């Protein structure tokens, strides 16, 4: 049994793994975690010009149970830290986090008492997008990078055998 499902990828696991990676990368459902100005640009992603539906991610889910990707769009403030942490924890595996904009990545121009200097102080982040606010093209580029990573060898994607 182990060689077929072996870590180094016996025949079955590679094809199933490849299939799962293909399925996951083509339906990354983002979570509507809109905070500030970047949220308005995130809403633009579903508008006719920057159609996110071409890669299967147009279904912005409101509940973390049904979302795979948490786009933290905007500045994360002190009062929102426990909420962001809880929403991230309640997302089902496999889950990814994209820090959209300078404020989410490093606190941006608000180097003060109120803004968390980078979302990675609170939740692990996979992809950072520069810009204030980043244009929807930049966010689509980030989602493309994430899809390549999932299709490549991202440990979180693919097959995970827990017997």
């Amino acid at each position: 049994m182990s060689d077929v499902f072996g870590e180094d990828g016996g025949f079955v696991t590679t094809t199933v793994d490849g299939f799962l990676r293909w399925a996951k990368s083509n339906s990354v459902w983002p979570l509507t975690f809109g905070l500030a100005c970047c949220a308005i640009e995130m809403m633009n992603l579903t508008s006719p010009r920057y159609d996110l539906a071409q890669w299967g991610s147009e279904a912005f889910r409101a509940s973390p149970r049904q979302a795979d990707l948490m786009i933290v769009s905007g500045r994360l403030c002190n009062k929102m830290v426990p909420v962001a942490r809880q929403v991230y924890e309640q997302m089902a595996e496999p889950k990814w986090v994209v820090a959209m904009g300078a404020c989410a990545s490093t606190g941006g121009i608000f180097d003060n008492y109120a803004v968390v200097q980078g979302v990675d102080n609170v939740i692990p982040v996979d992809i950072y997008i520069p810009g204030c606010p980043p244009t929807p093209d930049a966010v689509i580029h980030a989602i493309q990078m994430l899809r390549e990573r999932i299709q490549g060898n991202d440990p979180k994607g693919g097959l995970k055998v827990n017997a």
Partner: protein
Amino acid sequence: MPNTEMIDRANAAREKVNTEIVPALLEAFADKAESIAPTGDLIPQVFVKPTALLDVALWLKDRGFNMLVDVAGADYYPKRDPRFEVIYHFRQFPALGMIRVRVRCTEKDQPHTLSHIWPMADAPEREVYDQFGVKFTGHPNLKRILNPDDWEGHPLRRDYPLRGPRALINLDMPAELNRFAAFVDDEHANTEKKPDGK
């Protein structure tokens, strides 16, 4: 053909406030109010003692100041002894006359709340308390409005560092003192091994 009718109405109302309302107010609250020369925006200003604020507000409301525009806080820390100041803007609608009532107070003597006359005053007064520490007597629920409820200190004071608690810690601070360390368990910390290849 610019219709300057509104500008003339505002100017006329300002003259009226300057010539009638302010002198009447100063003489009605002789020891508790003093006048100030208006600056940039020519809005008539009056200093009022915290104890007399409620009566002045009611007095103004009877004279047509039916709109409370804003309640703001300010801190003149190094330069002036009663360091805090709560600034109320009133407006006569539709006569368009405006007046600015400035209440100099310290942390101890507390102005009375206006939320029972104007329900809108409830939230900005909570903000003044949250950001400056000036309490309002008679306020329904004086709690923090902008900062988390367990936040120490009042951020908008002049002696509060811009970066807040972060300014007082050096970078390599032990994790247990770092406010957000509790949220980052070791396994999730962002020093996680990046997926190879990227």
